[in-house]
């Protein structure tokens, strides 16, 4: 089994500027969240999480029924549901519609689901212009990169990076003040909004009893995307369903707080179909693309199915000691952090990136902050078992662990072994760490393990000794 890590990880760790950006940006989001979920401001927070978990579990366990109910209600209000198994089907649908309506310009709001599909590239390949309108996504699109974070796509870039991208792509003078950079993007994108033929959005929730798409944001680009063009297409994974509009009282309270520490984001849109008789504006055509793209594979295992409860708040990324060091571009797919580490192997198979479930210290912070209570550490362990079961080089490892288990079950032998190891331990360096081990502990698979780690010196007195001294049994 090779758990070779992507080179990107080493590059990220060596980049001091990037490390600082990651540390401060995720840290700020951690603090903001914390301030909005305390007992003083939201005493029912834990109750809401449990309720959200039950609602998601119920919906996913009965997904077929809710998908059909959702479709009935969208159709009943003059909208249309397009079912797509793959990325190609989504692109074909959009291209077909664009051709029929003679559309050229598409404005897009941020959607992780369309990132999965590389939708922009596919559309542009066929001569359409597809423009991201979320400020962070717009910068990323101009720079030809993929989002660094589920919620803050350009988290890794500084104002100077943005300045170079704008100068290069928009042909403007160098501008390094974020306020001015934002206003430049506003002007460019305002033109696009007013000319666009089609608006493509994602969806935060699909409401079955209403046939509605719910979208949350701070900038207003989603409202513009879904209101200004004559056609609105929402692209959503089939797992986005919730049963009733009233359930939003639970989900909206959790999503804004978990993502950015806001009790409610600036805009929350509840959209149910094309504009109706008498309404002055809004789209004439309303489509919801229901996408599988591998999601039904995640449904098959009743234990792992909970991966589909995710509402993409990004809190597990911000709190993950691994994500905060290796960053979003070290992960192999569009979903990074702990949630990426559990869903990517399920989408792609555990043999493609076997290191991924191991990219965690299992500290449990992700599960602690997950607003829908996905047991991420449990799933990581479960996925590690998949990797181990498929590995060929595990014989030595298995033997070693069997020996460890044999000793660990025999208290006297365990104590003796402990003393022996302590006696053999080499001296520490000036900082109090053991940097080098004797040759017999520095061979085979142990060698690479030891190379990356310094060890603390053995304790003067073992736990068992201390226990006896304190009069324990």
């Amino acid at each position, binding site marked *: 089994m090779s758990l070779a890590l992507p080179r990107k990880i080493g590059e990220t760790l060596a980049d001091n500027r990037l490390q600082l950006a990651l540390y401060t940006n995720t840290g700020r989001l951690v603090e903001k969240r914390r301030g909005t979920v305390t007992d003083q401001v939201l005493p029912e927070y834990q109750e809401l999480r449990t309720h959200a978990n039950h609602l998601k579990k119920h919906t996913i366990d009965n997904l077929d029924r809710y998908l059909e109910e959702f479709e009935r209600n969208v159709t009943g209000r003059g909208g249309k549901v397009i079912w797509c198994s793959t990325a190609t089907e989504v692109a074909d649908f959009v291209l077909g519609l664009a051709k029929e309506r003679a559309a050229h310009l598409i404005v897009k709001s941020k959607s992780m689901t369309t990132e999965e599909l590389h939708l922009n590239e596919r559309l542009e390949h066929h001569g359409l212009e597809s423009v991201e309108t979320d400020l962070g996504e717009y910068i990323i699109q101009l720079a030809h990169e993929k989002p660094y974070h589920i919620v803050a796509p350009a988290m890794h870039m500084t104002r100077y990076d943005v300045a170079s991208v704008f100068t290069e792509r928009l042909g403007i003078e160098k501008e390094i003040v974020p306020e001015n950079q934002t206003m430049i993007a506003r002007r460019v994108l305002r033109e696009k909004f007013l000319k666009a033929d089609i608006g493509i959005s994602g969806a935060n929730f699909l409401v079955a009893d209403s046939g509605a798409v719910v979208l949350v944001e701070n900038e*207003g680009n989603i409202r513009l995307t879904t209101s200004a063009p004559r056609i609105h297409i929402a692209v959503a994974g089939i797992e986005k369903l919730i049963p009733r509009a009233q359930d939003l009282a639970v989900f909206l309270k959790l999503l804004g707080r978990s993502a950015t520490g806001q009790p409610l984001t600036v805009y929350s849109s509840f959209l149910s179909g094309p504009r109706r008789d008498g309404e002055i504006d809004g789209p004439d055509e309303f489509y919801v693309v229901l996408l599988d793209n591998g999601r039904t594979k995640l449904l098959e295992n009743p234990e792992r199915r909970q991966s589909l409860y995710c509402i993409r708040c990004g809190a597990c990324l911000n709190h993950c000691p691994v994500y905060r060091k290796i960053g979003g571009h070290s992960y192999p797919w569009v979903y990074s952090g702990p949630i990426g580490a559990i869903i990517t192997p399920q989408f792609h198979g555990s043999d493609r990136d076997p290191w991924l479930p191991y990219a965690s210290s299992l500290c449990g912070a992700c599960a602690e902050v997950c607003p829908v209570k996905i047991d991420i550490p449990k799933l990581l362990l479960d996925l590690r078992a998949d990797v181990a079961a498929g590995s060929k080089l595990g014989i030595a490892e298995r033997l070693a662990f069997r020996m460890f288990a044999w000793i660990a079950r025999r208290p006297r032998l365990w104590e003796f072994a402990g003393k022996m190891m302590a006696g053999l331990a080499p001296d520490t360096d000036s900082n109090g760490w053991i940097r080098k081990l004797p040759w017999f502990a520095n061979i085979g698979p142990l060698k690479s393990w030891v190379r990356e780690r310094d060890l603390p010196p053995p304790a003067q007195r073992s736990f068992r000794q201390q226990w006896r001294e304190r009069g324990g049994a």
Partner: protein
Amino acid sequence: MSRAAILERVRAALRPAPSDTSDEPPAVKLRVPDVSIDDRVANFMVALQALAGKVCLARDTTEARDYVTATIAGRDAIASNAQFLRDTGIVDLPGVARGLNDREQVRSACASAAVGITSADYALADTGSLVMFSSHGEARLISLLPPVHVAVIPRQRILSGLDELLTVVPKPADRSSSMVFITGPSRTADIEQILVRGVHGPGEIHVVII
């Protein structure tokens, strides 16, 4: 046809426990606290001001008109067709485009106006939000395209919060194709997490409570 294929895959994956229609979703939990109207007004003010929104408590329609006039400050403004704006005479203020019913007209007026004036169907006290249903009375773009948004509402429309709204309006889709909550000015922090207001929507929001 992908529809049949996807539904079949979903059902196959959920076996041997296929969807059971008697399996009811967990009960809806909405808490509607008992908050007096004076407290709602006060809470709304605190919440919106914390987001850099401006609130004017107007004793009567004259005060409201004065505040709106001062906010327009001689610039171009467009008003929605909300009955409340007509009743209060806000639409008759100088420089205010009114009575637009055609989509294209509204759109180009909004694209050039400095101030968009609307009412709101409800407001939420605990978050400082406006709740707007798209209708003949309220076009979507008036609260969105102009850089300044002014909303004028009677104080009775302020609810305690989201739970009360979803109690009063359990099925928003029955009322309109679009329900939007507006909570403060448009903002972004996408560049170095530096807060910038007015990125796509209005950077300034004023709520006049009569």
